[in-house]
């Protein structure tokens, strides 16, 4: 939508590095990865049941880890809405795939999960894709 606007009419983010929409996307990615790891820890700390509630994920709400994970998710959603004010949706959404880099790394560091060859290769391909996307962003910024 913004791509059609003349550069002078494009919305401008607030001054300061923190309000850079691409930094916000990076924070969204980090917070989402943290949230996923916290939710997993919360699920592991929750008592195992075979009830309907456990299938709906409600027993996990008894753990503070789960609530910290939900807080991280909600905070990341705020950053996502802010970034959408300035960055094209397709580009922004593709950049959020960085979550798939940080979740395996976080799971390896904090949960002791293994990163195999297939997963490692996938992470490298995602990094290559994100590098191309950032180059694409740089080209767009140069034109503006």
């Amino acid at each position: 939508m913004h791509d059609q606007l003349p550069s002078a009419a494009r919305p401008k983010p607030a001054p300061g590095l923190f309000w850079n929409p691409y930094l916000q996307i990076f924070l969204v990615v980090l917070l989402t990865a943290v949230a996923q790891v916290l939710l997993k820890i919360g699920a592991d700390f929750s008592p195992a049941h075979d009830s309907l509630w456990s299938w709906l994920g409600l027993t996990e709400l008894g753990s503070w880890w789960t609530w910290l994970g939900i807080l991280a998710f909600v905070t990341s959603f705020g950053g996502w809405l802010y970034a959408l004010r300035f960055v094209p949706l397709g580009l922004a959404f593709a950049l959020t795939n960085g979550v798939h880099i940080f979740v395996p790394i976080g799971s390896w560091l904090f949960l002791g999960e293994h990163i195999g060859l297939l997963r490692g290769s996938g992470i490298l391909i995602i990094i290559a894709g994100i590098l191309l996307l950032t180059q694409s962003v740089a080209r767009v910024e140069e034109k503006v």
Partner: protein
Amino acid sequence: MSLTAWIVVIISQLALVAGQIFLKRAMSRREHGGKKARGWTGILAIGIVMMTVWFLLWLGLMPRIDLSKLMPFEGISPLLIVLGAAAFLHERLNWRGWAGVILTCCGVVLVSAS
């Protein structure tokens, strides 16, 4: 995968794409201010409802279908979003952007499949 599972997967992906497009449209309207900003909260609410539908359908699919069959759809969602944004928001990507999206999709499928 059964026919029902296919239908639910397709509806969930449509809800994800539509939800993100509504969120983007709401935030763009809000940014323009003035008359154009009118109704942005309603559009935002529709986006949030769509995202909730996607989340619940996705949660419902997880115990019923092998993750290896489900995760490729997670991988193609950025591609669907780019196509949806091109169709409904008139966004355009250069070749680097397209190559980046396709690479990240392949990477996500590999990470998820592992």
